[in-house]
C-alpha cells in the first residue's frame, strides 16, 4: 500500500546521485527488502516502473533481493533462517535468539553503464 512512497524514496536517492554526477549513466539499482519490512515486492516493482515511465530514469532496472528473517542463537551463536516462525536454534535447541536479518529496506548498489570506448 505504501510501495509508491518507498519507490519515490528510492527514485529521489538516485536523482540526488545523478545531480551529483551528471556524467554517470545508471543502468540498475539494487535494493534489499526484508520479509519483516512490510514491503510487497511486486507492488514495489510496479510502482517503480510507473513512477519512472517517461522520465530520464525510464531505463533504470530495479533489482530486488528478498531477505528472509534470520536469527542468531544467544547460546551457541549459530545463525539460521527462520522457517514457520521457528525461533529455536536448529543446532543446539536454545529458545532465545536475536533477530539479525529480515527488516532490510536498503539501497544496496547502483549499476553503472560502462563508458563507451573511444574509437
Amino acid at each position, binding site marked *: *500500500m*505504501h510501495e509508491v*512512497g*518507498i519507490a519515490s*524514496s*528510492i527514485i*529521489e*536517492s538516485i536523482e540526488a546521485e545523478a545531480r551529483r554526477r551528471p556524467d554517470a549513466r545508471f543502468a540498475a*539499482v*539494487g*535494493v534489499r527488502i526484508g*520479509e*519483516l*519490512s*512490510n*514491503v510487497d515486492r511486486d507492488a514495489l516493482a510496479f510502482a517503480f516502473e510507473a513512477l519512472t515511465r517517461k522520465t530520464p530514469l525510464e531505463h533504470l532496472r530495479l533489482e530486488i533481493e528478498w531477505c528472509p528473517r534470520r536469527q542468531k542463537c544467544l547460546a551457541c551463536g549459530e545463525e539460521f533462517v527462520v522457517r514457520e*516462525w521457528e*525461533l529455536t536454534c536448529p543446532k543446539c535447541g536454545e*529458545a*532465545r535468539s536475536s*533477530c539479525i536479518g529480515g*527488516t532490510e*529496506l*536498503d*539501497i*544496496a*548498489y*547502483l*549499476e*553503472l*553503464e*560502462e563508458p563507451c570506448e573511444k574509437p
Partner: protein
Amino acid sequence: MREAVEKKVLNENDRLAAELRQRYREQNILCVNFISSPGSGKTALLEKTLGSFAPGTSVAVLTGDLQTDNDARRLMRYGFPVRQIVTGGTCHLDARMVERHLNELGFRGPGLLLVENVGNLVCPSSYDLGEAAKIVLLSVTEGEDKPLKYPGIFHRASLMILTKTDLLPHVEFDPMLALENARKIHPEIDYLALSSKSGEGFDLWLAWLAALQQKTRQEAPATIS
C-alpha cells in the same frame, strides 16, 4: 560496473526521526506510537487514557487519519492539546508530518506525547517517528492469527494491547492463542488486555505507561538543579 551504496531507503525519514528522538530526550518527552487496523479501538483507548489524567497533566496528542478531524474532536473534550494530522490519502504518518504538527501544537516537555497512527497494520510500521515505543492494538473481534499475517508490526512493537475484552463472552476469540502467535514473531513483546468501555484492565495499562515514563525520565540528561 557495480557500486555499493548501502543506505536506507527511508534514510530521510530516519534522519528526521533521529532529530525528533533527540528533541524528546532533551525535553524529557515520552512519545508512544499507537498502531492497529482501523476500528481496533485506538481512539477509544486514548479517550479513556486522557480521561484518567488529572487536569494540568503535561500530555499532548497527535492523531492521524486519511480524512476528517473527527478523532481530534473526540479527543479535545478532555482539555489537553490535540492536533489532527490529515494525511489526505497517505496510509501512514511519517516523521516530517509529526515534526510539523508538533511544532504547530507548540508542545514542550517534560510530558507525554501520544501519537495515534493511521488505522493500518502494514505501512505505519516502516516509518520511525522517533517514538520510545510502538504499541500495537488487536481487538477481540479480529482474528487470533493477525500477528502471523502482519509480522512486521508485531516484530517492532514493544507492547500488544488486546482491546474490547468486554466482548469476549460474545465472540470466539482465544486471547492466549493471539498472544502465542504474537510471541512466535516477537518472544519479548509485552502484553495487556483491557476494555476501554468497562475499564477492565485499564489500571495495568496506565501502570505500563507510567513505568515507561519513569524509565525515560531516568535516561534523560541530568538537569541543573
